[in-house]
């Protein structure tokens, strides 16, 4: 008799243990892989804060916000399931990134991945996601090569460096044609010669290649072009090579500490360029501004966001206010893009109505998010599904900002490109140091 009771008791126990993960699936886990320590730690915190704010909005109801995800308090099509994020620190190390992705997929059983900022890390993580068939959305890695691998589980919301670099040269040409607000047409000779220095990982070397290619086609071919190690503690020999031809335009791609060091070295070597432009990343980190202070005035950076966007987009203003209340800082290119990519995750899940990878894949390939929903000044989000650039958001656009000192003494990023969105007169030439 007693033995007979054992069997149903065991069955109940087994069902119960199986039921626990089934109930826990109410919570949808997304793995975030970001650089939380190391040279790009400041950007890592920005990215995390941006994604966390989107998470807060998605999991709670905010009726005052004109955004579809602010109305649902969870994923409506999944019975109001809440989303949870698990953050991992890749330290800028591609191998570590790949290991963390495996850990998230196998141990944490995440539904999808978001990350990873460094293109070199995104590359290895995307390869892992593709192998395991787990969807990954990328928010801020801009190496063009990432969407040329033919991955079926990888989507990128941000525009990539070829698009941004084209913007740069349209801007430089605009400068010679008098299209830039507040600047009369500049003689092209003033902007020449062009010199380039980029850090040498996946991202920087691709930027360098793109600048060379597009520069040559537009008559701004770089005279000197240098790749350097992002962890290089000294850049004086590099700067000396850059200054040898007496450059008019200096173009950079650096991650964090190296971007700061570059400007410091330019200053101490008394560089006198007319235009200094950085490809986002290190040139837009909060550290860049806080450690260089007034020395940043006049420097241009490619960006995708400026708090000034709030003047033309109400939703951007509202989200920026929430972000400032939460962190004490304005949204930056990094945090705004992390926010947007996490928002895309929510919309994809909502459209999929399922946590099965195949359903999410289908939803991501079909999704179309309107411009009105976004805080970034893009035409929307829609991923390409054919051609050479698979998984790339085809509706994204770039901006160029310039650090300017306001009347209140505060330094902000004013928009100078696109020309029609300009929020201030451009400072030309850069005052220098």
């Amino acid at each position: 008799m007693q033995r007979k009771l054992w069997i149903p008791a065991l069955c109940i126990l087994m069902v119960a243990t199986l039921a626990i993960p089934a109930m826990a699936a109410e919570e949808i886990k997304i793995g975030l892989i970001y650089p939380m320590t190391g040279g790009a730690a400041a950007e890592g915190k920005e990215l995390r804060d941006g994604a966390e704010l989107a998470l807060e909005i998605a999991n709670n109801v905010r009726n005052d916000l004109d955004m579809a995800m602010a109305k649902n308090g969870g994923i409506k099509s999944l019975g109001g399931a809440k989303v949870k994020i698990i953050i991992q620190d890749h330290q800028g190390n591609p191998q570590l990134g790949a290991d963390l992705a495996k850990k998230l997929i196998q141990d944490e059983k995440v539904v999808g991945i978001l990350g990873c900022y460094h293109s070199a890390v995104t590359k290895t993580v995307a390869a892992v996601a593709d192998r395991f068939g787990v969807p990954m959305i990328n928010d801020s890695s801009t190496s063009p090569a990432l969407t040329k691998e033919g991955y079926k589980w990888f989507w990128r919301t941000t525009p990539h460096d070829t698009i941004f670099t084209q913007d740069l040269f349209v801007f430089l040409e605009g400068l010679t044609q008098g299209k830039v607000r507040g600047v009369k047409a500049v003689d092209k000779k003033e902007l020449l010669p062009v010199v380039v220095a980029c850090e040498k990982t996946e991202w920087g070397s691709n930027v360098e290649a793109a600048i060379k290619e597009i520069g040559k086609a537009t008559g701004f071919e770089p005279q000197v072009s240098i790749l350097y190690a992002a962890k290089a503690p000294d850049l004086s020999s590099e700067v000396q090579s850059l200054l040898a031809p007496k450059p008019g335009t200096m173009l950079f791609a650096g991650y964090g500490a190296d971007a700061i060091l570059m400007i410091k070295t330019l200053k101490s070597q008394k560089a006198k360029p007319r235009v200094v432009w950085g490809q986002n990343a290190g040139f837009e980190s909060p550290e860049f501004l806080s450690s260089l202070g007034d020395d940043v005035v006049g420097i241009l950076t490619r960006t995708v966001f400026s708090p000034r966007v709030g003047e033309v987009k109400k939703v951007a203003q509202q989200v920026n206010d929430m972000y400032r209340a939460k962190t004490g800082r304005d949204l930056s290119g990094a945090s705004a893009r992390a926010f947007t990519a996490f928002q895309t995750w929510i919309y994809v899940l909502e459209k999929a109505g399922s946590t099965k990878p195949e359903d999410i894949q289908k939803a991501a390939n079909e999704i179309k998010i309107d411009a009105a929903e976004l805080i970034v000044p893009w035409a929307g989000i829609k991923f390409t599904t054919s051609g050479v650039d698979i998984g790339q958001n085809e509706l994204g656009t770039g901006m160029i900002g310039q650090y300017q000192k306001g009347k209140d003494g505060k330094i902000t990023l004013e928009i100078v490109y696109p020309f029609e969105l300009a929020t201030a007169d451009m400072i030309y030439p850069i005052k220098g140091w």
Partner: protein
Amino acid sequence: MLVCLPLNSASKADIIMDELLLQIVRAVVSGLMMGLVFGLVALGLTIIFGVMDIVNFAHGEFLMIGMYAGLLTATGFKVDPLVGLPVGAVFGFLLGVMCYYGLVRFLLRGPVAAQLFGTFGLMLFLRNLALLIMGADPRSVHQGILVGKSFVLGPDIIIEMTKLAAGILSVVAFISMWWLLNRTRVGMALTATALDAQAARYMGIPTEKMNALAWGLGGATVAMAGALLVNFWPVEPNVGLLFTMIAFATVALGGFGSISGAAVAGLIVGVLINIAPIWDAINLFTGIEGLKGLQIHQFKYSFVYLTYFLIMVFRPRGLFGWKH
């Protein structure tokens, strides 16, 4: 017109040559100044080796601690980073003496392998301790009398104040170290210990104290170099690695145990690192096809390591070495 043409092109070639020469002079000057700092970093390593035949793998970590000492003095007390110099020196001296009495003294009783692994372990310990306390993020000094200042010498040769100060200090340190070792009783006792520790002990020289002094002096010079470096070089727990490698190459080049060797080798190393801009300048002004596109800056430290290798193969005792 026909007569003018060769004249024109000749003067153009002259201008190019002048520009090229100027770039080379700039590279060499900046290399020599960095070289003095590299020499100062290597000085401590060579003192310790010269007196005790011990290779201190934790040398770069002493430098890192000196950099943090300078940085924290400057940021903590809101003073100029230069004030960190004596603080770094005292800190480095104490650290060296502590390491000797706490670790190295015991290692001396073991085989040579124990000495190697012992200081290697010290390196790992100090690096991870710094990681625990200071975190992994690079930090740098942003304000100071010398930070970001420079002046122009002659035709367009730019001298950075921080590097100039580092260079001057390093010359002073070299001269005083030379004077200490060759002109004072303590220095002679140190030299005697270096030449034959047992005989020195029989003569009544407290060799134990001399060893500790060598570690203290080694620590003080390198920590001082660190406190100076932090004026223009960001500090993070792994910063020592690059310097340990360069210091080894410098010491090997100059000869293990040689003070003047370290100074000369430091200068050579500084210039070797600046081969890249010279290469680029030749490339830019002569326009020789085929040179372009070679990203030589990526390999700038390779020249140093290559020289290290060649010296080890062809002249293992270095340029000025006296220990075999």
